[in-house]
């Protein structure tokens, strides 16, 4: 024992004069650190109810519960997370995975109650004192639990694509597709938005598993045009994909395409194994577009003898005559159509109803009729000089090209319009080596055309003049040319809502000369094949049908679908219309089977 060791401990007294560690205030007043993982906050308006928080919670502390006010919002499941604080461990994985960044935590950590059942609440919906707390844990910038960026798609370079009709989008490799498929959070919100309600998360899952046969089966449950839709679908699904809220949406369309590309057409029969038991009933389908063929497929599967009447010499409708082959090659469209035909669907080509066969005859000879003749009549601009021979319609140009005819557009072309037909007409014109100017009344951001199409048309050298209103077509010096007088527009907000309206500025007018002007401002339906008397029977408004449940018209035997019977006017909606009409026709002709349901 030495003296130092005896005395040294008395040093402890020095501490008596130091500031104590403890704080006087009740500890409950001590706020958590700014990034503390305290009680949950959900911005319920931002949340889309994807349920990823529920999925990742290892404690099963989160339920997804219905909150009425959010049901029916586009891209929103109408569910919101409800937290059971009897199970939560405040790990914050729910915050990390939140696709909408709506979920975070406050730095509050004291919630006192004598009743142990109260610690259960729907964040952002039930009123809690910490809902407006600005502090607390949130996912750090640059920290991700799934890849926010999509796998880039390889495209034909613009300088190559512009000189051929080769498909521009090259498609994913299997490896790329697996990586892209990995990004899906499997919430299934896209399923509700997809007009056909395709089993998107399931077929994406099949890609991760490398099981393309399963994927093909899943797709045919709701869509007999997967090769087509895998290329040109308007992909509403991607616009609601929660992964796209903070990053880029999963490339659902390209993944769909991969599945089809991986399966050989000769294997379809074996994989899909559609067995048909004839039921002896006959259905007429008018129009072999996506709507008609979809109805034919699902009707055939139910055992109906289906005859499709098509005015053109090939099936596909707008998919064949309106979509250029660099977006949808013929053999891919044929892959879809051939399979439907292989099931015994009969197509009568070059047979126009109203001309070759009367509509009434169909009503007499068939048990039900499905009409899907779309919008085939180009809208006229109704401006002076429009009947000039150098003014062409976009649809006609596309049909000419599809039929292998020279559209005769010349070398300097103006395209009027901002829809997909306009973009296609423009890009086709580029492939005929024309210099292309697109005149559009509104801004590029308001173009109804697919964003990628707009981008690619620009890549390929089409010049877009936005806010340009055509007012008159005038003759040019040469008969081979035509001039257009157009004025600049200012965008004015519509006080009643709706998209901003362009207003002509008469002091800023221009006149340009072109070899041809391609008008592509919209399409209308052609219902001439329906007799005037029959018109009375249908509720047709603005040239469109408003079908009832199961696509039924006011006429007993008649069902409709496709562009002239819906507001979306795209292939996938037509496909769903056809599918739904098939259900409706089966219910109509075979009601006994549905009685118990």
């Amino acid at each position, binding site marked *: 024992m030495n003296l130092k060791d005896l005395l040294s401990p008395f040093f402890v007294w020095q501490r008596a004069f130091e500031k104590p560690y403890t704080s006087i205030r009740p500890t409950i007043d001590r706020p958590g650190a700014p990034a503390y993982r305290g009680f949950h906050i959900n911005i319920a308006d931002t949340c889309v109810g994807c349920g990823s928080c529920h999925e990742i919670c290892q404690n099963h502390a989160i339920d997804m519960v219905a909150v009425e006010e959010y049901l029916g919002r586009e891209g929103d499941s109408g*569910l919101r997370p409800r937290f059971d604080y009897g199970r939560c461990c405040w790990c914050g994985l729910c915050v990390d995975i939140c696709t909408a960044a709506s979920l975070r935590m406050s730095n509050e950590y004291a919630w006192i109650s004598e009743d142990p059942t109260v610690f259960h609440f729907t964040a952002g919906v039930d009123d809690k004192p910490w809902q407006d707390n600005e502090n607390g844990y949130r996912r750090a910038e640059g920290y991700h639990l799934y890849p926010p960026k999509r796998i880039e798609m390889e495209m034909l370079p613009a300088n190559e694509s512009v000189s051929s009709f080769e498909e521009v989008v090259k498609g994913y490799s299997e490896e790329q597709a697996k990586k892209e498929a990995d990004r899906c959070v499997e919430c299934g919100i896209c*399923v509700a938005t997809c007009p056909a*309600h395709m089993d998107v998360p399931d077929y994406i899952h099949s890609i991760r598993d490398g099981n393309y046969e399963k994927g093909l089966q899943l797709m045919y449950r709701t869509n007999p045009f997967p090769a087509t839709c895998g290329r040109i679908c308007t992909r509403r699904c991607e616009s609601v994909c929660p992964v796209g809220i903070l990053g880029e949406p999963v490339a659902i369309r390209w993944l769909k395409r991969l599945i089809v590309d991986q399966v050989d057409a000769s294997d379809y029969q074996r994989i899909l194994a559609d067995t048909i038991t004839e039921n002896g009933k006959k259905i007429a389908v008018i129009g072999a577009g996506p709507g008609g063929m979809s109805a034919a497929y699902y009707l055939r599967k139910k055992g109906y003898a289906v005859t499709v009447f098509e005015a053109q010499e090939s099936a596909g409708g707008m998919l064949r005559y309106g979509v250029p082959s660099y977006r949808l090659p013929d053999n891919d469209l044929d892959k879809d159509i051939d399979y439907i035909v292989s099931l015994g669907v009969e197509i009568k080509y070059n047979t126009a109803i109203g001309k070759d066969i009367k509509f009434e005859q169909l009503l007499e000879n068939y048990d039900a009729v499905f009409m899907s003749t779309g919008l085939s009549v180009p809208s006229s601009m109704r401006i002076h000089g429009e009947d000039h021979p150098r003014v062409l319609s976009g649809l006609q140009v596309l049909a000419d090209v599809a039929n292998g005819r020279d559209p005769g557009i010349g070398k300097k072309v103006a395209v009027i319009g901002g829809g997909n037909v306009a973009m296609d007409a423009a890009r086709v014109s580029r492939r005929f080596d024309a210099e292309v100017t697109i005149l559009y009344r509104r801004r590029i951001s308001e173009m109804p055309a697919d964003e990628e199409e707009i981008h690619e048309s620009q890549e390929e050298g089409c010049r877009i003049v936005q806010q340009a209103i055509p007012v008159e077509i005038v003759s040019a010096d040469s008969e081979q040319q035509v001039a257009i007088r157009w004025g600049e527009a200012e965008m004015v907000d519509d006080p009643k809502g709706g998209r901003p309206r362009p207003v002509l500025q008469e002091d800023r007018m221009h006149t340009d000369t072109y070899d041809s002007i391609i008008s592509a401002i919209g399409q209308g339906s052609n219902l001439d094949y329906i007799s005037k008397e029959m018109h009375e029977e249908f509720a047709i408004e603005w040239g469109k049908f408003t079908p009832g449940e199961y696509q039924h018209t006011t006429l007993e035997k008649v069902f409709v679908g496709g562009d002239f019977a819906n507001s979306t006017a795209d292939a996938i909606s037509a496909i769903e219309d056809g599918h739904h009409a098939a259900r409706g026709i089966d219910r109509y002709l075979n009601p006994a089977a549905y009685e118990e349901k």
Partner: protein
Amino acid sequence: MNDLMERLQRDFGVDDITVRKPALTTFRVKKDSAETLIRELRDREGYTHLNFMTCIDYIEDGIFTLVYMLHNYDKKLSLGVHVDISRENEDMVSIHTLWAQAWTYQRELREMYGINFPGSPRLEEDFCLEGWDDIPPMRREFDTKEFSEQRFGHREGRHSEEPRDHMKVELYPNRGGDEK
């Protein structure tokens, strides 16, 4: 390392030699040579440290793979010795004479997997599970979720919807893929 592995292959018939990383090689040895091999590694090859001893249940193959992790402090190398035994009541040779902590591992493995190590001290004593009357819980067939659901009640008022199913029921009940 290669020399050693060649020798072990020759003398003990080890197989499935896998270099997991520069500092870790694993291999498989027959049960009967395991104790001798491990002793030799300890006494002759400098693998004096038993990092741990554990078991992997390959229920699909009907085997338990026992893993002895040995370390050589001088060479900074580890060896994972795998020994497969049958899941059904097969005994394993005890190594309690090689390391002081080995009997504890063996006692735990008996409790958690039901593996018997004849001769290992205090093998029958409970380790973690006093009064356990179910099957050894680390076996794959023991379902912890089922167990806890039987023992513990559920909170009232818990119910969760799947976004996709909920939307179908609420928004498009008659559409989508038909039931298979």
